[in-house]
């Protein structure tokens, strides 16, 4: 959700039950403003909260002018009671565009930049299951059988691989973004020169449009768009329909779409990543999404539908 309309957005997204306490809201407003200034972001989104066992992570994302460019992700966490102060600290956040450094601070008002997600990270972290601990330096241990060559013998040895929780955090945020970040149709438009911009004349979806899944797009580079037939493409408006819609998500039915607040608010909840809530007030400009959850994919989804 946009940092500019944070309070309203939190109100509207509160239907899922998770929100922020007043003190967090206040500190978020201030710190996000400072983040926007420091990192020279065009827009700062409060992405959400990942609940850990001991502490929670608060995640924010910064966008540049081009809305679909890779976003920079920042996180902030607070140590729970009874934790020792971890050593090793504030590295300078990476200043170069597109590359991100890593830092960890203890002060609750400060945000640390996360590195961009790579496929390696995703493979590494796919073996880690369970809840997040809440400490970014916590290391998950995973024993693997690896083939080790020693001279002519090839035998398998158990190797304990350590995976840091930060890596897992980065990878999970990236997966969630790619899978379930949502934007309504018409909110962004593509200029002929390439960059994607916020559509200032977006007045909101109408009520009938808002109840259809096809009016919502994934907020990421399109993957399936080129697979559409020419007939389908003929109906699309190239300046507005340049992202994948939610209609064809697999498994079908992985989105729950409801009207709340006496039919004045459309809420989409993802069943694949429970905790992701997208809200939109039809005929107004208010929309946004927030993730508050444990950061675990709901693999049981096909059984549950």
């Amino acid at each position, binding site marked *: 959700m946009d940092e500019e309309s944070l309070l309203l957005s939190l109100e509207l997204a509160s239907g899922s039950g*998770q929100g922020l306490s007043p003190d967090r809201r206040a500190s978020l407003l201030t710190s996000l403003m400072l983040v926007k200034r420091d990192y020279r972001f065009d827009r700062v989104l409060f992405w959400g909260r990942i609940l850990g066992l001991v502490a929670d992570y608060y995640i924010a994302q910064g966008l540049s002018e081009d809305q679909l460019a890779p976003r920079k992700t920042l996180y902030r966490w607070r140590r729970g009671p009874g934790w020792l102060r971890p050593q090793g600290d504030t590295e300078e956040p990476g200043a170069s565009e597109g590359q991100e450094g890593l830092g960890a601070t203890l002060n609750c008002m400060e945000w640390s930049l996360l590195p961009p997600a790579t496929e390696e990270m995703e493979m590494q972290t796919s073996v880690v299951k369970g809840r997040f601990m809440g400490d970014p330096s916590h290391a998950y241990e995973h024993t693997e059988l690896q083939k080790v060559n020693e001279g002519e013998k090839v035998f398998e040895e158990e190797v304990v691989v350590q995976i840091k929780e930060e890596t897992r955090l980065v990878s999970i945020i990236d997966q969630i973004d790619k899978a379930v970040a949502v934007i309504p149709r018409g909110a962004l438009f593509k200029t002929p020169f390439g960059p994607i911009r916020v559509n200032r004349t977006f007045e909101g979806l109408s009520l009938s449009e808002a109840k259809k899944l096809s009016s919502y797009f994934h907020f990421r580079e399109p993957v399936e768009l080129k697979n559409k037939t020419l007939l389908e493409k003929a109906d699309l408006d190239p300046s507005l329909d340049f992202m994948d819609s939610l209609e064809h998500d697999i498994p079908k039915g992985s989105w729950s779409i409801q009207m709340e607040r006496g039919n004045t608010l459309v809420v989409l909840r993802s*069943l694949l990543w429970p905790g992701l809530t997208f809200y939109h007030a039809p005929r107004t400009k208010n929309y946004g999404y927030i993730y508050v959850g444990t950061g675990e994919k709901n693999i049981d989804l096909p059984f549950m539908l």
Partner: protein
Amino acid sequence: MGDLPPDPEPPPQLTSSRRNSQVSERRRSREHSRPQPTAPEEVQQIPLDAQILRGSQEMVSNQINRGWSQGASLTPNENFIFQAEEAQRGGIEYPSLNTGFPSEVQAQTYLSEGRLQASHNASLILQQLQQDEGNLFQQLESAYQEPRADLLGQYTRYHREDLQFSQDTQHGPYLRDDPALQFSPSELGFMPFSMEVTEPEPRELAVQNAKAYLLQTSVDCNLSLYEHLVNLLTKILNQRPEDPLFLLESLNRTTQWEWFHPKLDTLRDDPEMQTTYEMAERQKALFGQSGGSEGEQEMEEEAAGTAVPNIMEKAFYLEQAGVGLSSDESFRIFMALKQLVGQQPIHTCRFWGKILGLSRSYLVAEVEFREDEEEVEEMMEGGEVMEAHGEEESDEGDEGEEKATDVIPKPTWKPPPVIPKEESRNGANKYLYFVCNEPGQPWVRLPHVTPIQIVQARKIKKFFTGFLDTPVISYPPFPGNEANYLRAQIARISAATHISPLGFYQFSEEEGDEEEEGGARHDSYEENPDFEGIPVLELVDSMANWVHHTQHILPQGRCTWVNPLQKTEEEELGEEEEKADEGIDEAGQEVGPPLLTPLSEDAEIMHMSPWTARLSCSLSPQYSVAVVRSNLWPGAYAYASGKKFENIYIGWGHKYSPENFNPSLPAPVQQEYPSGPEIVEMSDPTVEEEQALAAAEEEEEEEEEEEEEEDEGQDD
């Protein structure tokens, strides 16, 4: 005679100018005569050369301005801006105005075809405009700001601009006849009048043709490009967005959309918003009840007031914890609960939480009826269940009696004995639950939960759809529909996650309790009047300061164990069998943790504590609230502060399991009837046997026929 041809030119110009001025006077009686005399002067000064184009441009636009002034006083501005904008675009589109090739007017070719003359003119005009842009816009702006009031002043200024132009650049004579008048929209009520049409300059002809083209409408719609551009520029000037060039495309689209969706209908309601308005009406009814008449109703309200909890206070504390619905939603829930209390005989009531569903969500209220109120409906439901069982048994008996000759062996499988559900107000059925989808909708009561439903609910994992009568399709088959499944999940969640600070509840003192096995096996508790509250920090530090105050549900599905075999009184049991059963009883008796067990005794999930405790605000610990979150049932929260505490659940209604969900395997294939002396499976006859049988039958028939013939023969 040679003088004549040149002569008519200036005089007609003059006359036409006067006529024009007369026309203008007719149109706007307010117009002073002051501008008129100046016009002819300018006309003379304008040289007839390439610069006339500029002049004709301005003039034509002036004429257009005058022509359309009444309709849209902003047209002059727009014209200029229009031209200016065109100029800004690099003059590429300028030729559109200048191409005066009537036969070749083509829509798309403006941009591509290079017409040297046109571009030359365009560049000249560009220069001109750019030089005077500042002045233009200033004057335009000031003109714009008083659109209606100062029509005259506007035109005064335009004439001044004309003067400027004429003084600076020596324009050619302006043509005063106004062929553009012929294009005036009939709405403006202009009287088309004939005038002397002198031979127009080719440039001007080009302009007029361009304008004619712009004004043409297609078969599909009544809107011409010209009108659309007028609307667009009006909109831009009205709204004055920053960086209008940047937004031009989207504004264009918006204007087009608005043209086709005029908001004219003030009488008829927007059909789309119908459901929204209905919901709002219903919710308005909620608020209407609070304004009851005074007097007698006050007493009732007070009595009812004690039943409805202080939702707003709890919502406040939950908000401190970062959980819960927004405050206006909480208030609506409060009103809805009040409505419920008014409708049903309720002793205590509590907002249990919200269960999210696919199409709709459920708001759940936990209530306890007053003690003297017996739920008649419950009895009926139980009766129906019993009757169903009775019918099944009688059916089987009937079948057995009818086929006396060929007795179908009765299957030896007996369904597992139905474990009776707990009585109301006991165990899992201690409270009654009402649900509704949104505050304002009527509350629906959920049926009591049966043990078999809880047992099956543990094996399946399904999303709720939001409609209570949806069947739950799963394996193992769930006995009931979504209402039952919902009730079962509510029971499980309540049993697992309803906690309170240690000491808030205490056991009611009864004699002889200490002698029972397994420690205190109390079923009831009561509030401890001496409870003084535990400091928040201690609540957060140790889980031993919290206790469960709902009974644990045994694997059987009940809170108190019931021996299912004892219920079957119909079976004749010998003494030996009874003893054996008792032995089984003792072994099978299920024991659960007693009431008021602290949380520290809860089983861990994969080395993970099932509860997470947090201070609501670490920056101000003295005023914060202790918040406990369940890891086993994500969405279950409890807070405590001082003497107050509350539990709430907002979530999907499923338990957390670190492993994947594995559906139960289907039951093993049932055994067929064992072959014995009574039951022997016959083997099918072989082909030879059948043929032998057929042959034997034929012989019999032949013999019978022969006998008949003989008999007949004898009769004869």
